[in-house]
């Protein structure tokens, strides 16, 4: 993938918004990759969480919003627990989800109609409630 980086893209609005919602300083990240190494769902992610942070800082908003990383995040806090810089990476992933879910188009990731009847019979409400809170606006 060819990526263009410009001065204007760094210190961009997108990264600022993510910082504001998450309360985390993205610049604290020194790209050690601990978060990605310990992430139980990194195998299913387009980019590792540390890459998402770097991309965000470089202003690559489109690339970040198109990747599935933050949708895959299960908020298990393993990354948060192990980050040597004390970043709460799960909050950063939540912030990126919210950048999308708070758009006026209401781009929900999950619809009740997508779930089969068999699954709805089986699933406990704890999974449904948390799932819909994470994936819908």
């Amino acid at each position, binding site marked *: 993938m060819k990526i263009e980086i410009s001065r204007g893209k760094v210190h961009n609005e997108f990264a600022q918004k993510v910082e*504001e*919602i*998450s*309360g985390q300083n993205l610049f604290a990240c020194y790209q050690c990759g601990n978060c990605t190494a310990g992430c*139980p*769902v990194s*195998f*299913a992610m387009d980019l590792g969480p540390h890459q998402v942070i770097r991309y965000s800082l470089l202003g690559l908003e489109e690339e970040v919003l198109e990747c599935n990383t933050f*949708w*895959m995040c*299960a*908020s*298990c*806090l*393993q990354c*948060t*627990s192990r980050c040597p810089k004390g970043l*709460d990476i*799960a*909050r950063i*992933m*939540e*912030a990126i989800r*919210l950048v999308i879910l708070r758009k006026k188009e209401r781009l929900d*990731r*999950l619809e009740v109609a997508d*779930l089969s009847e068999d*699954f709805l019979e*089986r*699933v*406990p*409400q*704890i*999974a*449904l*409630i*948390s*799932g*819909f*809170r*994470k*994936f819908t606006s």
Partner: protein
Amino acid sequence: MEFLYFPGCTLYTKAQNLDEAGRACAKALGFELKELSNWTCCGATFPLAKDNIMALAPPARILARAKEEGSALTTLCSVCFNVIKRTNELIKGDEEKREKINTFIEMDYQGDVQVIHYLEILKREVGFDTIKGALKRDLQEMRVAPFYGCMLLRPSEEMEFDDKEAPTIFEEFLGAINCEPVDFPYKIECCGAFQSVGAPEVATECAYAILNSAIRNGAEAVTTTCPLCQFNIDNMQREIRQKYNGFPGIPIIYFTQLLGLALGLPVEKLEFHRNDVDPRPLLEKRGLL
């Protein structure tokens, strides 16, 4: 000893086996669980966005109501425990948010209810030695893998539950009821959580890795404290079997069911029929039914 008890939504429905056994064990061990009156859902996720105060209202209301009825609030469900305890810590430490929340819920709560998990009651209030003395059935060192998952442990600064990388409370518990705790590297991993709804194929992989690790380390069963973990690693074994031919399957038993068994409670009270992978063949083989 009396504790206010917050069951949470799932314990009233799909996880009655966690709930009923927990209540029966409390009675057998001589502490009272007084169900909180007028409780609501805790929200099932702690909001990670700094500006999402709205999601703190339900757990804050639960805590404020608990304050009116007692001083210590317990849960069995790890997710409820996590949401309520983190909200309590936030209310204690963040004056601005505390005021906002109190204005919103029209109550005055200062964060002074003690939030304690049932396992902590067993360890700190009842004592594992007392439990050892109360055993009525010999579980004969059944090899059980304790699955902690995420919610009891993280974030450790707020949960203050156990060591975040190498916890031991679950192993101590299993030892006290004469099970052999199976150490396995996936004990603090994530079961996939709500991804069973968002990306079930991903949650299935998480569950498969956990169960495979437990089985390879010699576990006959896995135990949990959480109805979400339970769903992902018990009920979703159906999906695992479809994907991985030859996956042998393993029963997942709530810790309260094991405790009830060890305390000699009538088996009907422990509702083993509600577990998806039937644990009864294992228990029968061990002569426990």
